[in-house]
């Protein structure tokens, strides 16, 4: 991170450094807005990753659907949600993954007023 980017525990504060690191992944995810591209991705994920120039770490994270690693490597949540959509995963499914909970428990915590970090 650059020196002025706020550091908040348990939080990705997305900045230019993160954005640059994750650019191939985010570009890939953005392309998945188009249904023809979604078909091509599903048809050959490996080749699709190569087409967007993902390095080995990014590619591994995508192929293994390692959502935490995608964020650690500069993925933006607003981009990787488009990849999650291909797997029929919702933001609440991802919330469960990020917090080590089942989707049901994550949803239940929100319905009980959300998670508090005072």
């Amino acid at each position, binding site marked *: 991170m650059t020196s*002025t980017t706020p550091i908040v525990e*348990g939080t990705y504060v997305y900045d230019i450094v993160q954005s640059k690191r994750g650019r191939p992944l985010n570009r890939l995810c*953005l392309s998945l807005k188009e249904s023809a591209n979604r078909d091509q991705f599903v048809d050959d994920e490996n080749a699709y990753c190569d087409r967007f120039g993902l390095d080995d770490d990014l590619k591994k994270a995508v192929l293994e659907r390692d959502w935490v690693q995608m964020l650690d490597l500069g993925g933006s949540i607003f981009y990787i949600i488009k990849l999650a959509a291909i797997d029929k995963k919702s*933001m609440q499914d991802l*919330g469960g993954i990020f917090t080590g909970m089942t989707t049901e428990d994550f949803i239940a915590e929100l319905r009980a007023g959300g998670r508090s970090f005072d």
Partner: protein
Amino acid sequence: MTEIIWGLGTSHVPSIGAAMDNEKAQDEYWKPLFDGYAPAREWMAENTPDVAVIIYNDHANALGLEMIPTFAIGTDDHFNVADEGYGPRKVPNVRGHAEMSEHILVQLVNDGFDMTVCQELDVDHGLTVPLSVYCPEPGEQWPCQVIPILVNVLQYPQPTAQRCLALGEALGRAIRSFPGDLKVAVFGTGGMSHQLSGARAGLINEKFDREFLRDIKENPERLAALTREDYIREAGSEGLEMIMWLIMRGAIGDDIERVHETYHVPASNTAAALTLFAPVTAS
């Protein structure tokens, strides 16, 4: 003269739009939220604007990562509803007001706000969900023309809250100086507290939200003095969107009354709120 007849602060959570689109608004999960909207919707339906200026952020649908405009304005007379990956929402495309948006652009630049100009723009849920909050059943056409104003809230450095309030004040002057006698509504969208990713995903901070709702009317200077880090720490990385409400508040000014307010947890991963202001001089 052109006047601002109301200001609306509202969340723009995509699932709020999906609930309406899929006729789930009366389901047990969603009913409390939409019941909370009802009094505001009735009031707005009787006080219809000619033009809505909607302050929102794009979510990787119209703008990529190649360029990140801090503040931008859509100047076209037509904006298509974006395909966010599931096909566009089944709502009408949006009519712009090219003449007024050019006027606002020029006035803002003259006032020191160097806006990026979006001459073509697809509008995503950040803009269309607030329109649906105002008007749940538009039929073939939205009941007003729309001027989109976009704010970078996704990538640091976002604009400061102070700068958002100042932009709002300049926006108010720009709108009121438009020749004619149009009626304008200003929407500030986003929030309330929420965080989508990281170990703090699922964060909700009702205390912060309630104080924000109080002070967006009573003490916007306090909210403008909060740092980006304050917003991220207290309201979550995506809760920082609430700085966009300060643009609405700056535009409508200090001489206002609160017509309605509602707050509800959760709308999917988010605390959702609505606040509606009208100038006290309005009938």
